[in-house]
């Protein structure tokens, strides 16, 4: 076979929809159907020009943190392993394995580095749709923190 498709079951354009109910100057962008998200696995989304990592947890909650991994400078957080530390639902960076609390973005395990937290976004699930809160006045993009870390234990690049 030669044809390969990568189309998810539903795609919703990421047009910010300002909902009148919000007291702050916050708009809710509909990103996808909750059914598009695999429980306990992340997915990246483009929200308001920013890369966001969405996670659907085992209990059905959806969380959003920045896709940028502050320790490696790559946009990969959605590809980390979801789990828990104590009560906290967590994601571990797939790059250098720092662990973050998905509720607050707090860095719980910095793996020998200075902890850096992740930005989080409020998320709503309504009528099977996942919506992420975006400020009506766009915020400055999260600055990329570029770092190089050598991890001798993980020499995956040499097959």
């Amino acid at each position: 076979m030669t044809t390969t498709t990568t189309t998810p079951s539903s795609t919703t354009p990421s047009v910010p929809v300002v909902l009148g109910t919000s007291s702050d100057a916050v708009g809710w962008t509909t990103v996808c159907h909750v059914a598009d998200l695999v429980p306990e696995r992340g997915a990246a989304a483009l929200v308001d020009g920013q890369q966001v990592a969405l996670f659907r947890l085992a209990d059905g909650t959806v969380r959003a943190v920045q896709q940028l991994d502050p320790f490696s400078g790559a946009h990969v957080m959605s590809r980390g392993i979801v789990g828990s530390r104590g009560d906290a639902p967590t994601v571990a960076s797939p790059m250098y394995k720092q662990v973050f609390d998905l509720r607050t973005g707090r860095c719980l395990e910095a793996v020998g580095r200075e902890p850096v937290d992740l930005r989080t976004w409020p998320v709503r699930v309504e009528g099977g749709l996942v919506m992420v809160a975006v400020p009506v006045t766009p915020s400055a993009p999260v600055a990329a923190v570029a770092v190089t870390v050598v991890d001798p234990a993980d020499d995956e690049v040499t097959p």
Partner: protein
Amino acid sequence: MDTSPREDSPDELAPPTTGPVDGVIGELTEPKHPGPATETPGTYRAGMGASRHLVVVGGGMVAHRLVEALRDRDDAGTWRVTLYAEEPRAPYDRVALTSYFSGRDASDLALGTPDLWDDPLVHLVRDTRVTEIDRAARTVTTVRNGGSGPTAVEPYDALVLATGSYAAVPPIEGSDLPGVFVYRTIDDVAALRGWVEEAAARWKRPVRGAVVGGGLLGLEAAGALQALGAQSTVIQFGPRLMPLQVDEGGGEALRRLINGKGVAVRLNTSTTRMRPGRDGKVRRMDFADGGRLDADVVVLATGVRPRDELARAAGLDVGERGGVVVDAGCRTADPHVYAAGEVACIDGAVHGIVAPGYAMAEVVVDRLLGGQAVFPGADTATKLKLSGVDVASFGDAFATTEGALELVHADPVAGIYTKLVLSDDAKTLLGGVLVGDASAYASLRPMLGRALDGDPGAYLLPEGAGSAGRPATTLPDDATVCSCNNVTAATVRGAVTEHGCTDLAAVKACTKAGTSCGSCLPLVKKLVTTELESAGITVSKALCEHFDLSRAQLFDVVRVTGLTTFSEILTKHGRDGLPQGARGCDICKPVVASILGSLDTGHVLEGETATLQDTNDHVMANLQKDGSYSVVPRIPGGEVTPEGLMVIGQVAKDYGLYTKITGGQRIDMFGARLEQLPEIWGRLVDAGFESGHAYGKSLRTVKSCVGSTWCRFGVQDSVALAVELELRYRGLRSPHKFKLGVSGCARECAEARGKDVGVIATDKGWNVYVGGNGGFTPRHAQLLAEDLDTQTLVRTIDRFLMYYIRTADRLQRTAPWVEEVEGGLEGVRAVVMDDSLGIAADLDAAMARHVDLYQDEWKATLEDPEKLRRFASFINAPTTPDPSLAYVAERGQVRPATPEERLASSDGSGPVLVAGTTLEVRR
């Protein structure tokens, strides 16, 4: 352009005689700290605040221990030390010299840490001999080897003679012929090895070797000759082997064992001369009884003599049979001159083993610092370091104590002779001889001079025999556990209870126990485990906060219960009292995924298992630093057709991928974006490629040389075997990645011994080595079995791998596993070759299931739209590339832009970046 299709062409090799030899010598000789080595002896250096100057003559094991101990204890820095070493290298582990042949890593011969030689108060002068001592002036004269350099005179406040011994050369005609060697230094063994390899290449038949001397050293040398592929005959003057250590009964059992190893033994034989062949090299040995023996190489192992010539010339007393006479404080008659190690004659005796020398070194240091330490007496316990021949002797092995009782257990069929020497009331252990099964050695030796618990006879039974087995001994605190390093049971226990060591490695580092000959390791390990247990420190093998079990335990649980989902495994076997929402983590999830993978070889992306996987396993590619992935199709045995190469080339070109040949003999394509992976793999799978599992903790590659099909030296078809093995073990999930290698002859072009499993062709079949790896802590693989036919070889590897998969810790590679698993390498051999645990059939069945159920993960994924969903770059823009990716061109390919380049490019001052690698995509 070089059109040679092979990278492992033997033509590129240095001739075998110099290649390996240079390798090892180079490593140990290479001045790590060129300063001291090249300086003129006697030059003053920084750090000269110390008021007193110690000169040590000789750079051997005892000198090393002395300097180490001095720097450890002399906190005030009252002494600075100059060490003169005649050999061109820093002190090394002479005890382990023979391991040079079995290819343990050369740097393993290094002693201690190299920073000792960086210490400003320590000055190592290599390649330099002390030629004279002027005791009146308190100076030594030194000369650099080669004789060309100037002599220098160096004053001392204290002098230590640690010149060791030289190998005795018996006055036999012909002992100076080329091809006759002694066995004492790295240079000796390197020359011996070169000679044998050259002879093998020249004669195209097995090299005939002979060893004169049937003591400990002679037997070690005979084993070494054999390891080099030579035949070997031991010629012993006396009526039995190892006469100093074992009695008659033991000697006979030993002879049979040695014969069983394929080494011939001639007892009661006196060599009268060695005769050259027409080429002037040694060719034949003549014996007093009229017999003769053809020999292309002869090793003389007839004993050592103390190097006491400096002391003699300086008018110091020497013992009757040589050796510098010292008192219990290791001092000679001259209060400024000490002697320690093999050169010293203490209590009227010269000791040819390292433990008493180390004890002397400690005494000298204590004295130098004003203490009153005395030599505690020598522990002469010895254990032969010859693989497959278990011999140990300790204490009063010949029952010379008045009224001593001997308790003997002999089993000629099993080749076992064991004897305990007990006091007249049959309670106190005085000594022993263990031949054929020395497993009790480590626990018996520290009991010397103490009452044994229970029936002494029980100690002589083979390990595990009878329902009771051996009595468990509680070692008294002051019992010496490691005699090489004089470490007591209390010290080992203290390492756990006071210094917080929680594993064997930490205890070794902390106490030095087990760091020399290693024979005490089983006991040290037992002590450590007991201590940890009783201190309530469960040796935490717990995986993570979610599981108390170790990986090996979890593996058993999953295998026995047949559970197949993480949720169930966590609920039923997770730690007690986990919070409600506990969901595992990045540690336990991949472990469970790997275990499930090893057990039923379902697709790695099936159902819940998919959520357990690391991103690499999840998208079946290797995550790179910028978030893109690399793609590695399997190229079994490194064999690829031109058509295959063209497909890879075209794919790389179309997707703008950076390509690089890997160390595993295949091609890695970098810079593939998540959403491109299915398309790229679609093309590769169409062309007949399959996943290379470069991303998994699983088999990577089976590296091979070109072997007998093309290579003029090859004796077996290494490529065919490599392909067979790679196809057999592909996709096999394991505690860590593992690699195999196959070489077509002993030249080892495939570097198989650097692999977890290395196979090297012999005339008769295959030798298999296990436990090698490169990387952070390189290890050479150790010989597991010899001359196997292909079928037995495959079965052996099957079992080895399955046993490893079942019992290793998380991320434990085969080398540390072999060290830690029950019984070490011997234990592995027993399980794999002799089915000592009765699990071989089970292991075989597990491997058969793996081979049956194997499927290509990528092919299966491409056929399943559900699985393909995970390759969307964004859930709401599935084909939009990650906008942050940026590349620059370098040497005709792309590489990720550095942060500086990104900045420079955004303000217009830097290079133009390629956004992603989309531009090149051809549809």
